[in-house]
């Protein structure tokens, strides 16, 4: 009896593996997909090469004057280059730029350990950043003592102002949002309804009307003679507005904590604030970090609205640069520059929040 020896396996047909196979299954699987793919390729062919040549190949990078761009058909990055300091630092005196650099450098140095797994004192460091760092930064920006010259807030501007507005918004809205969220879940009817009304009010109106209100109405509310800085008024508006959104995010985290945790804290005899501070909030806040990052992204984009009440954030300072008679007609370059800066910030933050979400959602991995 002969032993049956099967033939060796045939290799898969060439048309179903490798590049061709990939194309067949991903691009040309049906006539309709084929048509769609070809149309998309045509679209890419129409748009991408001109954009690349405008942005890179035909663009002017060197020079200091408008004449440098006269002959080219591409983007004139010289416009951005000669004004880059203004775009970054606003009207801050040039000799004092180091103060802004120092402030943001300090933030980066302080922030790095937060992302290191091995670092032990994350909570303490975060508390330091949230409480003391803003004071240091305010000193650096505003000056007035320690031998630093005073710089008025009207001279703050550019990207640094955008970052300050976003930073203040998040730092001020977090504690307020936590209090509001706790209030909304409170069993005391009056406390609860006050919080609900507050949250729904701010969430129901557009930020512009809030900014209008803070710039037009706030002076009316205060006793005669109190004069408030325009920037501070905007910050108050942004912080109140943002705290309502933050409260909803925190509330989501509080609701996600199992009831047993609340009951266990009560059974241990902890007071309300102790059980919140030691048991519930540490867990809830950790859960909602992605949500907080997402509200921060929204806030970061919303800071551009201060343009309307006449503060010079990154977008506003670029917008006013278009009015320079020496540089008329380069608005597209300016907008593309601003858009790419905002995009880099927002996109990297959203990726970060997504990766966090994945890390925290270990229970549902399929």
């Amino acid at each position, binding site marked *: 009896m002969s032993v049956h020896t099967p033939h060796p396996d045939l290799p898969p047909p060439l048309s179903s593996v490798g590049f061709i196979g990939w194309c067949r299954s*991903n*691009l040309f*699987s049906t006539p309709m*997909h084929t048509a*769609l*793919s070809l149309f*998309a*390729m045509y*679209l*890419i062919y129409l748009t991408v090469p001109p954009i690349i040549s405008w942005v890179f190949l035909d663009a002017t990078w060197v020079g200091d004057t408008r004449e440098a761009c006269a002959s080219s058909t591409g983007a004139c990055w010289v416009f951005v280059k000669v004004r880059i300091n203004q775009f970054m630092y606003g009207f801050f005196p040039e000799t004092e730029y180091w103060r802004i650099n120092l402030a943001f450098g300090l933030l980066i140095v302080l922030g790095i350990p937060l992302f290191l797994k091995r670092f032990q004192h994350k909570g303490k460091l975060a508390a330091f950043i949230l409480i003391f760092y803003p004071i240091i930064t305010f000193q650096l920006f505003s000056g007035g003592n320690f031998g630093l010259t005073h710089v008025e807030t009207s001279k703050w501007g550019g990207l640094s102002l955008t970052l300050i507005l976003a930073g203040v918004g998040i730092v001020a809205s977090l504690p307020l949002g936590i209090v509001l969220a706790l209030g909304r879940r409170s*069993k*005391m*009817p*009056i*406390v609860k309804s*006050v919080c609900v009304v507050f949250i*729904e*009010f701010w*969430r*129901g*109106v*557009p*930020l*512009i*009307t809030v900014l*209008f*209100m803070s710039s*037009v*109405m706030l*002076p*009316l*509310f*205060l*006793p*005669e003679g109190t004069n408030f800085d325009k920037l501070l008024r905007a910050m108050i508006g942004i912080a109140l507005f943002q705290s309502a959104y933050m409260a909803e995010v925190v509330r989501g985290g509080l609701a996600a904590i199992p009831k047993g945790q609340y009951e266990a804290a009560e059974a241990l005899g902890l007071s309300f604030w102790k059980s919140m501070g030691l048991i519930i909030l540490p867990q809830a806040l950790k859960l909602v970090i992605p949500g907080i990052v997402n509200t921060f*992204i929204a806030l970061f*984009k*919303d800071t*551009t*609205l201060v*343009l*309307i009440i006449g503060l010079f954030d990154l*977008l506003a300072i670029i*917008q006013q640069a*278009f009015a320079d008679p020496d540089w008329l*007609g380069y*608005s*597209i370059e300016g*907008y593309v520059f*601003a*858009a790419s800066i*905002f*995009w880099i910030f*927002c*996109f990297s933050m*959203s990726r970060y929040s997504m990766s966090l979400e994945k890390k925290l959602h270990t229970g549902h991995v399929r």
Partner: protein
Amino acid sequence: MADEKRTVSEPAKPALWRRPAVRSVFFQILLVAGIVYFGNTIFQNTLNNLEQRGISTGFGFLDQEAGFGILMTLLPFDETHTYGRTFLVGLLNTLLVAGLGIFFATLIGFVMGVARLSRNWIISRLATIYIEIFRNIPLLLQILFWYFAVLRPLPGPRQSLILNDTFYLSNRGLYMPSPVYEQGFWLVMVALGIATVASILIARWAHKRQEATGQQFHTVITVIGLVIGLPLLAFLVMGMPLSWDFPVLQRFNMAGGMVIIPELAALLVALSIYTGAFIAEAVRSGILAVSHGQTEAAHALGLRPGSTLRLVVIPQALRVIIPQLTSQYLNLTKNSSLATAIGYPDLVAVFAGTTLNQTGQAVEVIAMTMAVYLAISLSISMFMNWYNKRIQLVER
């Protein structure tokens, strides 16, 4: 052991200030007192300040003559109309841009959301790129870009980009023919109304019959036939009572037709593209939320792919999509207030801008503006609650 006394000591009553009920009342009284004090201070300060500046309070200014013109109005408006009328005009313009924006954003969002899930690699990549780019750039920047970098530099009316002698695109806006309703058009509208009512009745009847007997009825075809056929019939019977008013190029500007002013166009394009990216994400998450087992089960029951999508996947996906969708609609409506940055005459630009500056009635104007947005958002969230209750899964 009867004499052994078990003394169950009555738990000592806690001191008054330690009892939860007492504390809760105390804190709430404190809160109310604080709010009343705060509100009163603000009220007094405001009254004092207004008196100092010589601004009268109250809503009397609404009846005064406005004395300024508005770029685009849906109601007849000129300088002699009142401030109250500016409020209405602004409100209508806001609703117009919000309504159109919602329509286009939904369209873009659904197409892009489905495209992102497409099996076609290149299509899904393109959709991803669209979503990631436009979601992460501030809306105001996009509005300014479309207005100042794209639409304003367009050539003047004399060098308009002309399509087919009907559409003229220039820096004055997009001119297109406007319909002129002649005598007898009312019958077409009546026919449309009758067709709509009949369609609803037929759909209900067909649904009931299917529930009872299992017999299906070609509702979709019947409804399409009714809604298109009946008005068409009326249109033909009345001798086509509709003509078009074409825009004509004149010495300096265009005449006739209707126009989409560049401010509206820029706002609309930016709002639709920006919100569309968010809606696409909502659609994608909704479709992904329906587990694949549902599709497989439907196939196993013998449903065809079209019916599977219509009867099994979409109803379940909508449960996830609709709440996110309404919140995006709400955002779009609120974001339409950015119109003020490019001068589109919406509620904020006209009323909280020009009217406020002319009258100085900051408190009343801002309060009215905020009330409008609050009313819109509260009614939408009321709808949401109703909807959520309706579609809530009935669990065993």
